[in-house]
């Protein structure tokens, strides 16, 4: 361990000799824990033994329902919250650990952050807002205007420098916040639901912009959201959190197509669930088979020991079902249409099977030609590769 650091010293400690971080890893948190005490005395484990790492140019998304600890984890990394346990490195320096006692204040961690409420300071013009990090970090005075102008241009609001923020729309304010966090060319940027306060339409534009900026600046990002579409679109890695713990950490495809648990499957998208009993363990093609009240389904077992007879839950996503007119020996289900829900780019059919199961089927808009009416009996074929069996 380090020899020098004094207890409680308010600074970061170089970790060259700890070997704790590989060079590309820009932020790393290890076994972080943070417990809060509610006003009624109850303890909440907001972050419970979480380890994450992000490399340069990559984006890690923290995804989970409200209250699962996403914000707390991010704020611990930022230095705005003090963890109970664990270690935090950023930019190759130890920022927090219990022993040796290190706790670098947020301003010296060299991280940038974007907030949900835009947190654009109302008493400063846009240019002053963007200049603030430069001034605080002691950039030479005469370089500042040029850097500010460049940052504003980059986020597409070059002419708004003189405005006060309250004159701007939500989308524009969030652009200011983005420019402000990127103006110092940070190596790490933290995002706490930065887009959840802006219009759905603007949100899409900003998301595209964010990806472009990341590509340009090459920062490592940690991004908190509870919107799974946002998560899947932005992420290099997604960490799905549940009650302070990481339930799954993987690529968007992993998390969406091969969710580790039913919780993850349900959280990152819509899913059909049918109870089933394994009839055949996984064969050469890795596929197993199971009997369901709706017929036999073939699919991937998601746990090692799903031997025949095991009760499982079969999951498949609504868009992995095809409405077919020809029957099939397995993975074919029939049901009658309850109603069709138009949602623009796609439409959802809600069916009920003969034994009362509800099934959701999602179709892309371009098949708009074939329409069905409630009561129609439809045959569905489920792609075997997208059926997953989970132990109960």
């Amino acid at each position, binding site marked *: 361990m380090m020899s020098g650091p004094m207890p409680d010293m308010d600074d970061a400690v170089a970790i060259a000799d700890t070997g704790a971080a590989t060079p590309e890893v820009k932020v790393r948190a290890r076994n972080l824990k943070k417990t809060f005490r509610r006003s009624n005395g109850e303890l909440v484990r907001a972050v419970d033994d979480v380890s994450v790492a992000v490399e340069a140019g990559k984006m890690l998304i923290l995804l989970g329902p409200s209250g699962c600890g996403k914000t707390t984890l991010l704020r611990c990394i930022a230095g705005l919250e003090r963890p109970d346990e664990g270690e935090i490195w950023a930019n190759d320096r130890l920022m927090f650990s219990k022993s040796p006692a290190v706790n670098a204040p947020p301003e010296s961690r060299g991280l940038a952050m974007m*907030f949900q409420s835009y947190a654009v300071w109302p008493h400063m013009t846009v240019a002053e807002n963007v200049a603030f990090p430069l001034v605080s970090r002691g950039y030479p005075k005469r370089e500042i205007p040029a850097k500010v102008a460049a940052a504003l241009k980059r986020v597409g609001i070059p002419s708004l420098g003189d405005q006060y923020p309250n004159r701007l729309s939500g989308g524009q304010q969030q652009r200011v916040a983005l420019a402000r966090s990127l103006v110092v060319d940070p190596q790490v940027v933290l995002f706490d639901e930065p887009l959840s306060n802006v219009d759905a339409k603007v949100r899409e534009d900003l998301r595209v912009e964010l990806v472009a900026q990341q590509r340009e600046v090459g920062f490592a990002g940690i991004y908190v959201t509870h919107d799974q579409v946002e998560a899947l679109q932005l992420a290099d890695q997604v960490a799905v959190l549940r009650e302070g713990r990481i339930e799954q950490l993987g690529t968007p495809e992993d998390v969406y197509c091969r969710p580790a648990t039913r919780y993850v499957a349900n959280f990152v998208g819509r899913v059909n669930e049918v109870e089933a009993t394994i009839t055949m363990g996984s064969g050469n093609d890795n596929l197993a088979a199971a009997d369901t009240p709706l017929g036999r389904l073939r699919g991937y077992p998601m746990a090692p020991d799903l031997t025949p007879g095991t009760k499982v839950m079969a999951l498949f996503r609504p868009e992995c079902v095809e409405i077919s007119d020809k029957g099939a020996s397995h993975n074919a289900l029939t049901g009658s249409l309850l109603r069709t829900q138009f949602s623009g780019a796609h439409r959802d059919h809600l069916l009920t099977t003969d034994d009362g199961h509800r099934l959701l089927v999602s179709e892309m808009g371009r098949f708009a030609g074939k329409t069905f009416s409630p009561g129609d009996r439809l045959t569905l074929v489920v792609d075997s590769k997208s059926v997953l069996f989970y132990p109960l």
Partner: protein
Amino acid sequence: MAIMTQHIPAADTGTRKLSSLLFEGANGLLALLMLLLVLYPIGAMFVRELLPDGGVNIQAFRNVLSSSAFWEAAYNTAIVLAVSGSLSILIGTIFAWLNERTDAQMGFVSKFLPVLPLLVPSVAMSIGWIFLAQETSGFLNVFIRWLADFAGIEMRRGPLNISTWSGLIFVYTLHLVPFSYLIVSVAFRNLDPAYEEAARMSGAGRLRVFLKISSASVLPAIMNSALLVTIVGIAMYSVPVIIGSVARIDVLSVMTVNLVRGVYPPRIAEGVVISLILTAVVLGVWWLQRYMSGRQRHATIGGKAGGTSLVELGAWKWVARVLVLAFVAASTVLPFVALLLVALQPFWSPAIDVSMLSLQHFEELFQAGITKRALTTSLTLGVVGATIGMIVAAVLMEYARDRGGWRANTVLGIVRLPGAVINVVLGVGFLIVLGAPPFNLQGTALILLLAYIVIYMPQAATAAGSAIEQVGGELIESGRMAGAGKSRVFGRITLPLILPGLAAGWAMIFVVMVGDLTASALLAGTRNPVVGFVILDIWENGLYSALAALSALISMISTAAVMLVLYLGRGRLSQAGSFSGRITN
């Protein structure tokens, strides 16, 4: 029509409408009544004194403006106000930040500490400080000299001297801090912590964040507090009369009071002229405040509030706490202890002889018929006046919020106006209008009550207004949409929600009413003497120990009453859970 079978019985609609109409009518009427009550006395006096017989009383203006005494007092007032005002805003802002935004806060108690001075009538605080820091005999001086003696330093007087410029400014500042604290702390409470955190993340240290972000973003509130501090400071009488006159520092409020009630024949016209000038100053500050906050609209974007995180101060936390406690000691504890000491002594003496201490003066207080009656009257007036005043203020501010537009502006203007007129001048106005036929209220408790309500309306309205602002519009509108008329929404939704704010306002008004000196001296009758009246009387002719006993007593009564009300106001809502700051959803 088939679908007319609505679930709204027609009769019910009728009664609801009637009660709503009544409510609105009553509100409008109240606004009108308040308008009369404020404008009529002020107007009548201005007309009588400054526009006698249709001409302008130029002589009064000439007398004032050509008097070197006026200019000296104006200069003194400006200095005292500028220095103590800035200091109190600075201290109030820092305390507000410490208590709302940093880990130096000490729970519920600490939010309460900086407003403690409001519970000690300013007369009592000033007298207490005379006892503490009078140059030769102040307890603190004697104590310090005793300590110095050990160190071999010999002093005959000092080192402190309250009867100086710095002493005067010191006591003014102690008195004004709570006013700025009250307003700025609400702003800090509502300030999105993300503003500060974003600044930390931008590389700014704690100090820079406080200076450039936290206090700058609550600038509108600071301006607002500057307005209140100006109003309170200009009207302040007991501090300068007790401390300033010994130091030969005359200020305009004391000068006005002297002109209006200290000399014979009374020189009311000149008092009115000075009031007019002060009104212009207050309006100027008001305009400045509106201009500044209009220019920089404060954008509070309600994100998810979350658990507000506090700025960690590290070791500075203890420094901050000590500062807050020192302030409480200076403004409340020390003066109170001094008062108590003197009250227990036979007469004020820096040499404390424990064997001589007794409750004699307290006993005499209760024996003296006039003091007993004064206490009863004052406390009754305080309770009734603060209650009516807060209700009126709440109804008016709700009316302003509800109606908006010119009506709101009129109401807001009216409730602030009394703040700009020196109390004693307002008192004369009341005497002129209500003391004369057909009202003939001269010497009654009613005229005092009305005068108190009008005089302290600006404070009441500020408290009620900020309480109402805290209640999100949608909470009220959803009441209307639930089928409740304005009166029911006010009674069942708005009122319970603003109750803690009203309770705090009540406490503040109660204390100033009980401690009022100037209007009381003019309006209190022989049958209903009030405490302020008795205090002045004892101050001018009685024993300091008796005065100390009375001051200590009303401080205790005020504190007890205020604690009780705050506790009740809080208790009512604590069942709804923790309830800090904005009540928007």
